[in-house]
């Protein structure tokens, strides 16, 4: 298969192939070719930093995008409930897991030049394809709603009326797509995503004890309360805050849209690793920033949102620190609304064999753009519905995302081991061992969650 996709050049020769292609090119081909020319020039000129800069994007965005509204609330709840201890190294572990999973999507995209949904449909048929899409659509729509909840509550902290903040979020998603240019969309989203690091200065306002941080990282302690149902739910929510199905679909399609090839896999890995490190830093900073609530024995179980956290943290972080926290929650929702709605767009257009690229014009990409804007409008409308159960939704979404992960990971492992399409980029034994361990671990934790939900008295406390 890897030979098959390059046979135009083999049969016609590069120049003739290029000329033939020029007769049948589309707008996205032209724009992607321009982006690729810059990459090839940088590679030829050995401008390594510029090359890395040009190829950065999908990995950083997917990782910082997953530090979304419900994820930051999960991390804040973790810090407020358990303080600095077990969960700090655990969060690092989850980001290592996220890197291992997302790195596979880089290789898949670079080797096949096809999105994740279209590969599932084409290689395994519509039966499995529709199941995978069903999981993704349910997960994405619910997660998108929680992003608008984050935007809404972040806005409320600053006194912005709900319809204005939610409407502004929907407008931002729509306008970013109206750029009709992948590269511009990507850089805009990256600039916004940089604000995820606002949680780092917010954490510094909590004056964290460096020795306690080092002790927690080294010994995975303390774990107040021990293993109980709340602990299992927190574990599941924190896994759901780092590895979710939308990330797989988004990064692979973004890698394809950006035009990465086999030559660029190294930079793709660096992009993903950098994203994981930045996102882990912001996640741990959120735990640290919320840890004073643990010390003050503040009950956060009734908190509805990140804005409640920001208000409760004001006596500990000061007005400026709490403002940074609220801004970070709002940013988390905004960037994730952009990436998750785009993930839905790619996957839905791929599933119905429609064109799917952010370089498409509006006429050719009507299904692509309509999916993103439509899902943002639905999510925004639900959030603005009076009496909508926003708190329960926020708490449930990460758990659901984790439970939907094992089948998504199995499809990923099947595809990345498919030598017909992957060639020499197929998984090696170590990657399969790591991937298999992640599937088994998430399935077992999910099963434990199911058991303790049905039989709450099984574990103490």
């Amino acid at each position, binding site marked *: 298969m890897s030979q098959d996709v390059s046979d135009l050049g083999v049969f016609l020769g590069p120049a003739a192939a290029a000329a033939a292609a020029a007769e049948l090119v589309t707008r996205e081909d032209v724009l992607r070719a*321009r982006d690729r020319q810059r990459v090839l020039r940088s590679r030829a000129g050995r401008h390594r930093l510029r090359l890395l800069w040009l190829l950065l994007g999908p990995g950083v965005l997917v990782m910082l995008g997953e530090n979304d509204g419900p994820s930051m609330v999960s991390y804040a709840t973790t810090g407020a409930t358990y303080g600095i201890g077990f969960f700090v190294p655990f969060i690092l572990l989850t980001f290592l897991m996220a890197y291992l999973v997302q790195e596979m999507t880089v290789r898949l995209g670079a080797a096949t030049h096809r999105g994740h949904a279209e590969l599932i449909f084409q290689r395994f048929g519509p039966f499995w394809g529709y199941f995978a899409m069903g999981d993704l659509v349910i997960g994405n729509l619910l997660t998108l709603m929680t992003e608008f909840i984050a935007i809404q509550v972040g806005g409320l902290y600053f006194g912005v009326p709900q319809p204005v903040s939610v409407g502004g979020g929907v407008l931002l998603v729509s306008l970013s797509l109206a750029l009709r240019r992948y590269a511009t969309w990507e850089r805009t989203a990256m600039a916004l995503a940089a604000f995820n690091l606002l949680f780092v200065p917010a954490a510094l306002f909590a004056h964290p004890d460096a020795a306690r941080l080092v002790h927690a990282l080294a010994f995975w302690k303390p774990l107040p309360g021990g293993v109980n149902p709340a602990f299992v739910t927190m574990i599941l929510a924190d896994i759901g805050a780092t590895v979710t199905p939308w990330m797989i679909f988004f990064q692979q399609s973004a890698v394809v849209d950006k035009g990465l090839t086999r030559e660029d896999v190294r930079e793709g890995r660096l992009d993903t690793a950098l994203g994981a490190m930045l996102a882990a830093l912001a996640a741990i900073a959120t735990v640290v920033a919320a840890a004073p609530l643990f010390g003050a024995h503040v009950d956060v179980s009734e908190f509805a949102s990140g804005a409640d956290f920001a208000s409760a943290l004001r006596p500990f972080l000061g007005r400026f620190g709490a403002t940074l926290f609220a801004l970070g929650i709002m940013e988390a929702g905004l960037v994730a609304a952009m990436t998750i709605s785009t993930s839905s767009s790619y996957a839905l257009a791929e599933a119905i064999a429609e064109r799917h690229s952010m370089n498409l014009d509006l006429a050719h990409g009507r299904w692509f753009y309509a999916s993103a804007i439509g899902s943002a409008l639905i999510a925004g409308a639900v959030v603005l519905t009076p009496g909508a159960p926003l708190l329960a939704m926020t708490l449930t979404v990460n758990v*659901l995302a984790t439970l939907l992960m094992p089948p998504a990971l*199995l499809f990923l492992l099947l595809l990345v081991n498919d030598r017909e399409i992957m060639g020499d980029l197929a998984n090696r034994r170590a990657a399969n061992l790591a991937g298999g361990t992640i599937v088994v671990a998430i399935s077992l934790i999910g099963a434990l969650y199911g058991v303790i939900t049905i039989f709450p008295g099984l574990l103490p406390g």
Partner: protein
Amino acid sequence: MTSEPSDPSLFEALEPGQLTLYSERPLPRRRLGRGMLALLVLLRVYVLIAIPIVAYAFVRALLAH
């Protein structure tokens, strides 16, 4: 397919598989072994059991507030 003027040499920057013309051709179906099919079915059952449990937990949380 496009109204934008384009230089044919520009497309040397792309691998043929990156062109829309190529990517619109579906890949052939792959046959899955019995073991793998069983695993896919098992995980599907897992999801079908998990979703009602999450829904139950969601409703319980709803009633609790």
